[in-house]
């Protein structure tokens, strides 16, 4: 398994140079990489259908219990086949679609990197490995949506997709971390054993909510669905691959994977059922008024994703089987439809539904592919779509939570989906011809081959679905929690129905199949009373066609409702982004306001609050006053220093203030001298002098001193200064009074002469015991000198003004 991932990684790495070398044929060559992966998966297919799993593991970050655990089982097989098969089609299509563009190499590399990540998502068994791959799909998707990087629209759509799925991803990470913490394992395959303790945990609700947010954002569920139509800014091959067939199904995949661990509860059934059904209906309804072929397809994708979520929410064996079947069927019809939309765009220069018509004459092959795919979408037998739809109808009847809601939304969705299928496959090809920007002609084989193969597959598999397609779907459903015994029962029913359908497509056989399907529905649910299956189906199709026929009138009638979009989730997103940025601006200007005095104020205030809290919160009494033993001259020096301080704060002249500060330094130096450290005093004097000089050089380049503060502010500052002074005085006082003896002084006194060869202990400390400190301070002095020199001599502003270039 690692070999196929490595192959893709290598292909992605080599793609840019390979593209440059092979030119337009690069697609055929690069398709070999996903082709090899596909071949590998197919070779393992029989074993996986029999219920075998293949594991591979490599240690990654053992300190975090993260390992690259891969596991190929039925569920990963279904998704893996989709990714690789669509991957082959995409690589061939993309190179032909993009044509000569210097960025094609990077596009190919990104597409292959995405395939690698997406396979990682479905093969990962370790939750963190899954998350790593999950995020990589998001980043590659971002880069692909923004392929037309010079267009604002594309960049905005890419950002929107990234932010929505990125936030979802972070929430998912928290959820998965909590889940593996509760379950005691990071391996998803081992988690189902801990389902009891997970669902019994008080944190179950939180974990569930977080995992669902992750899955819903990725799979474009309401109310996060809006990023997906926006993502249509990507080139069509990308939309077909990422935003229809694979990446957006990652959320569905995760839900199926987590069903055995988190599923089966009331919360699970209700949330997934309601959110899924809402998304399903909303997607279909919003697809109907769109004018752009790709937008129509995007909304139907949203609708399909909603249906998948709803099915997993229903969670019975039949529903899980239906979900897995529909995952495949959806890719087999939606992929070709996207490719068709791309071909139309490529050959006619427009994707506007209203400007297209009569293309069947100039583009017969494309028309045939579109027809096959649309029939599958509309669930017309004998296509695979019909088979999957049967399973779905049967499953919908089994819903226990929100059953009525699911029933009616499904019915309405069915009608609109039929209309949309007609809009996609009939209008551009079969109505009277219209003027298009480019003279249309049939696309080259590299553009239609992939779509043609996928659509044909749906046609060929349809009649024999029960024997060929169903076992794989069952294998996937078993992993997602379907019970093998129920599946067995189900399979026999499925076989019965398809054996009818496999006969020549006589009306009777079709009816038989539909009846059988409905019998399934009756079998497990309360909705048997709602009409006969065949009639319902006919009514659905008739209504759907009617809607398309009267589409313009209908759209005009409901136009005012369109205004509601202003309050939709997308508007919320836009406002949040704008709001976030302006909040950031306001807050930053408030806190980082550019005034040094406000910075100093905050720092000092925080200092005395934090350091004062432990001392005064417990009313720890200040230690008793030590007897003050101050001599007169000491007092005088201190007084002088105090006066200098007061003068420095009061004066309007910066220079005078600096001189006053220098005076304080000299006071300290004198103190050192008195206490027997002449070397120290000299150092202090030198430093003071240099500091004053340094200050002066900066100060004389600053603007004139002015008072910006109000009197109230100055009073406030005064109070703070006094508080800071008082705080430090009391702290020093306290520690000086009750602090311990120095552990070092006796040693210094003893060894200063004997080993340091000096009578003055302070000097020996400076140059020997702590010589390293002194060396550091000398360096500081040297640097200060360099600084004074530099500031004196180098003024690049002036040099620039005078025309000298630095």
């Amino acid at each position, binding site marked *: 398994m690692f070999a196929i991932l490595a192959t893709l990684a290598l292909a992605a790495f080599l793609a840019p140079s390979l593209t440059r070398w092979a030119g337009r044929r690069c697609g055929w060559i690069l398709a070999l990489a996903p082709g090899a992966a596909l071949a590998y998966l197919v070779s393992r297919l029989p074993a996986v259908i029999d219920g075998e799993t293949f594991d591979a593991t490599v240690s990654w970050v053992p300190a975090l219990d993260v390992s690259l655990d891969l596991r190929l089982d039925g569920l990963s097989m279904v998704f893996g086949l989709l990714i690789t098969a669509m991957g082959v089609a995409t690589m061939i299509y993309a190179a032909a679609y993009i044509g000569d563009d210097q960025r094609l190499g990077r596009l190919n590399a990104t597409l292959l990197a995405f395939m690698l990540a997406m396979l990682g998502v479905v093969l990962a068994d370790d939750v963190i490995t899954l998350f790593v791959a999950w995020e990589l799909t998001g980043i590659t998707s971002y880069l692909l949506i923004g392929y037309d990087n010079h267009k604002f629209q594309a960049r905005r759509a890419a950002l929107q997709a990234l932010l929505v799925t990125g936030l979802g991803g972070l929430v998912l990470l928290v959820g998965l971390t909590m889940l593996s913490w509760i379950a005691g394992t990071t391996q998803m395959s081992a988690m189902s054993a801990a389902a009891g303790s997970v669902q019994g945990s008080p944190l179950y609700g939180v974990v569930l909510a977080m995992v669902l947010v992750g899955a819903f954002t990725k799979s474009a569920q309401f109310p996060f669905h809006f990023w997906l139509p926006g993502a249509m800014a990507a080139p069509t091959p990308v939309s077909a691959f990422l935003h229809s067939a694979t990446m957006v199904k990652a959320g569905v995949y995760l839900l199926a994977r987590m069903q055995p661990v988190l599923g089966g509860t009331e919360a699970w059934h209700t949330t997934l059922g309601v959110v899924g059904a809402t998304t399903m209906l909303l997607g279909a309804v919003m697809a109907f008024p769109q004018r752009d072929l790709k937008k129509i397809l995007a909304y139907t994708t949203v609708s399909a994703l909603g249906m998948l979520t709803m099915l997993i929410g229903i969670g019975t064996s039949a529903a899980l089987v239906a979900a897995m079947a529909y995952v495949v069927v959806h890719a087999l019809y939606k992929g070709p439809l996207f490719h068709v939309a791309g071909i139309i765009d490529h050959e006619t220069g427009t994707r506007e539904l209203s400007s297209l018509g009569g293309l069947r004459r100039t583009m017969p092959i494309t028309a045939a592919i579109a027809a096959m795919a649309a029939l599958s979408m509309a669930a017309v037998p004998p296509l695979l779509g019909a088979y999957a739809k049967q399973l779905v109808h049967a499953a919908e009847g089994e819903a226990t939570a929100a059953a009525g809601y699911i029933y009616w939304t499904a019915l309405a969705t069915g009608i609109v989906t039929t209309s949309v299928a007609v809009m996609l496959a009939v209008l551009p090809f079969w109505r009277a011809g219209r003027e298009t920007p480019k003279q249309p002609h049939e696309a080259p084989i590299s553009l239609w081959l992939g779509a043609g193969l996928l659509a044909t597959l749906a046609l060929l598999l349809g009649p024999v679905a029960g024997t060929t397609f169903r076992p794989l779907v069952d294998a996937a459903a078993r992993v997602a929690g379907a019970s093998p015994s129920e599946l067995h029962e189900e399979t026999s029913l499925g076989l019965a129905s398809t054996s009818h359908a496999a006969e020549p497509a006589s009306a009777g056989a079709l009816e038989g199949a539909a009846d059988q399907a409905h019998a399934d529905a009756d079998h497990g649910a309360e909705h048997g009373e709602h009409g006969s299956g065949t009639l319902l189906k006919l009514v659905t199709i008739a209504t759907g066609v009617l809607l398309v026929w009267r589409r313009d009138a209908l759209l005009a009638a409901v136009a005012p409702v369109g205004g509601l979009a202003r309050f939709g989730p997308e508007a919320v997103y836009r406002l949040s982004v704008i709001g976030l940025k302006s909040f950031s601006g306001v807050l930053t200007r408030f806190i980082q306001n550019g005034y040094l005095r406000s910075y100093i104020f905050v720092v000092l205030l925080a200092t005395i609050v934090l350091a004062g809290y432990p001392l005064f919160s417990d009313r720890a009494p200040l230690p008793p006053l030590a007897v003050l033993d101050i001599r007169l001259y000491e007092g005088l020096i201190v007084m002088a220093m105090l006066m200098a301080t007061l003068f420095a704060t009061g004066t309007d002249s910066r220079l005078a203030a600096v001189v006053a500060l220098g005076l304080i330094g000299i006071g300290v130096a004198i103190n050192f001298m008195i206490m027997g450290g002449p070397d120290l005093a000299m150092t202090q004097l030198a430093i003071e002098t240099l500091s004053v000089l340094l200050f002066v050089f900066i100060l004389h380049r600053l603007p004139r001193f002015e008072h910006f503060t109000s009197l109230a502010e100055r009073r406030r500052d005064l109070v703070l200064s006094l508080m800071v002074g008082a705080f430090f005085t009391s702290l020093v006082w306290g520690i000086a009074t009750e602090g311990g003896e120095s552990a*070092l002084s006796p040693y210094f006194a003893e060894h200063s002469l004997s080993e340091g060869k000096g009578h003055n202990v302070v000097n020996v400390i400076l140059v020997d015991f702590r010589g390293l400190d002194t060396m550091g301070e000398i360096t500081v002095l040297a640097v200060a000198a360099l600084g004074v020199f*530099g500031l004196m001599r180098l003024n690049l502003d002036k040099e620039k003004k005078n025309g000298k270039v630095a």
Partner: protein
Amino acid sequence: MENLLVLPIVIPLVTAGFCLLASRRIRLQRSLSLFGMVALTIATLALFDAVRSEGILVIQAGAWPAPYGITLVADRLSAMMLLLSAIAGLAVTAYAGWSVGERRERFHFYPLLHVLLLGISGSFLTGDLFNLYVCFEVMLMASFVLLCLGGERAQLEGGVKYVILNLISSAIFLTATGLLYGAVGTLNMADLSVRIAQYENREVINSLAMLFLVAFGLKAALFPFAFWLPASYHTPPFAVSAIFAGLLTKVGVYALLRVFTMLFVGDPDFTHTVIGILAAASMVFGALAALSQKDIRRVFAFQIMSTVGFMALGIALGTPLAIAAVVFYLAQDVILKCNLFMLGGVADKLRGSGNLDKLGGFWKTKPFFSILFLISLLTLAGVPPLPGFWPKLALLRSTIETGEGVLVAAVVLAAFLTLFSSIRIWSGGIWRDAPPPDLEPTDLAEREKDARWMMVPAAGLSGLLLAYALAAGPVFDYAEAAADQLLNPQVYVQAVLGEGN
């Protein structure tokens, strides 16, 4: 082996001296400087290897026994930081020749750079609290002069804020050190670790701990002490910003990590809770503020604040996993922040401005540069499997295990905002088409040539980031072992003070 400990101090000092002697010959200075940085890298690599195989290394300066003299110590954390500083120094030296301009080089850019490295190396090596202060002063003075070198008005404005706020930090640091010495009577950190634990007045110790938190928090750019950083980092040449961004705040984080795992561990309910609150505020405010900035270096400056918040959060949580996360964070962040500023410098060179409104158009014309930038931006955003992801994951896990929902929310929010602001740079600064720069064609050609050379060290650091991604397992193992040393200070104490303690 112990003698290796002296090299990270001696090499920069000697190099600075030689560069100073060659002050009129810029080409010679460049070569000397590069040579010195290579030597420093080799020496720190040897030290790193020695510490990894032999454990904590100790040398007593002047052979005065601890705690009376000054001790130099290297444990796994120190050894790693020394190596990273040398690598960042090497990259910036290679970068500087093409970007800072000859006038500044003539006015002692290289000696100052090496003195800065001296102060930084000293901070990581010293086992003495007062000597740490001295090293901070060396760093502060060298960085202040580097910041103002050139004397441009914006530089001086930034420089004044930088130096005054940092001097306040120094004053608090010095006062707190003096008071601590007054209370327990020693300055050697190993000795302090023993004596503080025995000191009875918890309130005084807590109060002093808060003073150290302010002093080091200001150096580390923790909220609300970080004002100096966004006020100054966008003013000097990019090479100066790059070395600052890579190393200065990290020294503050290092100091916090040191004292809050070794010295002030008696009352974590108070001290570490405070750190946690400041950390959360830094994470969120830094990431949020970065969103509204136009100057690319101001964006990065606020993101530094946010990153420091993440690291401080790890210190506050204090579990082995969280401390390991901090060490991993440091390991990649030195390289990352240095690289971001260097790449920003390339963009600035090519467009004549570092303003996001004027950048762009690189994706079409400079794919290699764009990809380098993308690697760093995604690392910053914490996108897996790049190295920025792993420490975030470890921190998230540690936070979840404490059960503090608010902190978990802060981590998620900050991570999301960081993703947003990183991508904003990509989208606006690289992807977007930009009008051609307002530069003379001859000047532009010259700049293109410089930019190519400036990309060499940036490519090297980017490669290092990718290497971290591949070697995340071994790096995390190292971080875990480093955390183990930090959380069991008795080994350090014994190594410094000898058996019997």
